[in-house]
């Protein structure tokens, strides 16, 4: 109890850092995911292979390796990056953390989006085409709203993993929840209390988010009659 009272402010600062990283990386990742998903479904072979390679690389390698590749690996190209004026970014652990988290989640999110787009019944798209919608309107008015509704539960899972994945940035000196726990634990030799409190904070963040996402999911499907699939277990089965 003393431990919590003495260190809670620092841990809350860490939690704020975790929230920021999760929020920014998920937002940018979502923006990147749409073009990647469309490229994977494109008829042009070059686009399709490039997007497939991107997704395969970022889903097939550990996030830790990606963080190291960007944060430490960029040092090998210091001169070139300096010449381009980019070195100030890559020298900054926060930028590297956000960049690797974003690139990583973009790959996973694009797969969710692709699956959702492919799950839309063909008739709906044909009907929209028959009504004379052009490609942009088709995407905006028919495909995206449907895909969001279909992909939302899977995307909720992705955000949950992203919240947890941010803990890795503590390894490159960022003071998120895990970073604070490591520092506090090492200072007072109170590793158990420090990591225990960190675990508790992540639980609050994760299950708090799942609660909010569940409310949004109900809203997204409010106009649909739902009989089955009401009590779907959250976080089961498909993990990344």
């Amino acid at each position, binding site marked *: 109890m003393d431990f919590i009272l003495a260190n809670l402010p620092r841990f809350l600062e860490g939690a704020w850092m975790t929230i920021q990283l999760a929020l920014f990386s998920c937002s940018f990742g979502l923006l990147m995911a749409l073009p990647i998903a469309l490229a994977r479904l494109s008829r042009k072979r070059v686009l399709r292979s490039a997007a497939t390679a991107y997704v395969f690389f970022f889903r097939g390698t550990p996030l830790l390796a990606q963080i*190291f590749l960007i944060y430490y690996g960029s040092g090998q190209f210091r001169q070139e990056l300096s010449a381009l004026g980019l070195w100030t970014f890559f020298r900054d652990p926060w930028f590297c953390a956000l960049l690797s988290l974003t690139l990583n989640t973009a790959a996973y999110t694009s797969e969710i989006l692709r699956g959702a787009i492919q799950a839309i019944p063909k008739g709906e798209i044909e009907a929209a085409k028959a009504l004379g919608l052009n490609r942009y309107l088709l995407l905006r008015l028919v495909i995206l709203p449907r895909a969001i509704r279909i992909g939302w539960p899977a995307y909720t899972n992705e955000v949950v993993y992203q919240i947890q994945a941010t*803990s890795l940035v503590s*390894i490159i000196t960022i003071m998120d929840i895990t970073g604070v726990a490591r520092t506090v634990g090492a200072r007072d030799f109170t590793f158990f209390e420090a990591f225990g409190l960190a675990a508790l904070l*992540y639980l609050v963040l994760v299950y708090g988010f799942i609660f909010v996402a569940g409310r949004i999911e109900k809203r997204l499907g409010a106009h649909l009659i739902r009989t089955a699939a009401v009590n779907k277990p959250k*976080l089961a*089965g498909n993990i990344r």
Partner: protein
Amino acid sequence: MPDFQGYGWLLLDGLVLTVGVAIASMLGALALGLLAALGKLFAPRAGKILIEVYTTFVRGVPELVLLLLIYYGLPTLVQNTAAKAGYDLSLSINPFVAGIGTLTVIYAAFACEVFRAAYLALPPGQREAAYALGLNPVITFRKVELPQMMRYALPGLGNVWMVLVKATALISIIQLPELMRNADIAARSTRQPFTFFFAACLLYLAITAISMLGQARLERWAARGTTEAKS
């Protein structure tokens, strides 16, 4: 071909340890996960709640935090408790054991959900038919339910394996000389971090690619005797 400056073997040594740790953890996760799934389905109420708490906790806490909690937290907890009782105790966990233990505990929770869903997907008629033939519940589970469960469970378990392989990289943080750790050592001494971390990435991709092929074969094996729907 990039110049590994004699560190190529270090990477391969790391790869071997990574695969070994992953296989050991996966076997542990399968065994513990199946047990937990059976518990969640059939145990008395208290047992069900206990398992529910376990899976809820593990799925809401990052792997890294759990690993650090077990590797650094548990020994300090024991030491501090012993110190209060007047004993001077020095304790540490082997990183190999801590790594495999943590991954087993984490991925058993995910495997548990996969097994449970697979069990629930079985048509109840299968069990009823087995009972009608006079098989007892244990034989029914082993001979009738488990083989069919595998068919439903394999895609999910394949997913668990892929995630687990990547999670082994975290054990480098507690200095186990697996692929990531060895790449880090090589990167520091040669000052070529990009070369070595990229090489490590390619090796992880190789494991992923081989696993995907293996999974496809396993799924075909598990589906033997069934006909695929023609589209």
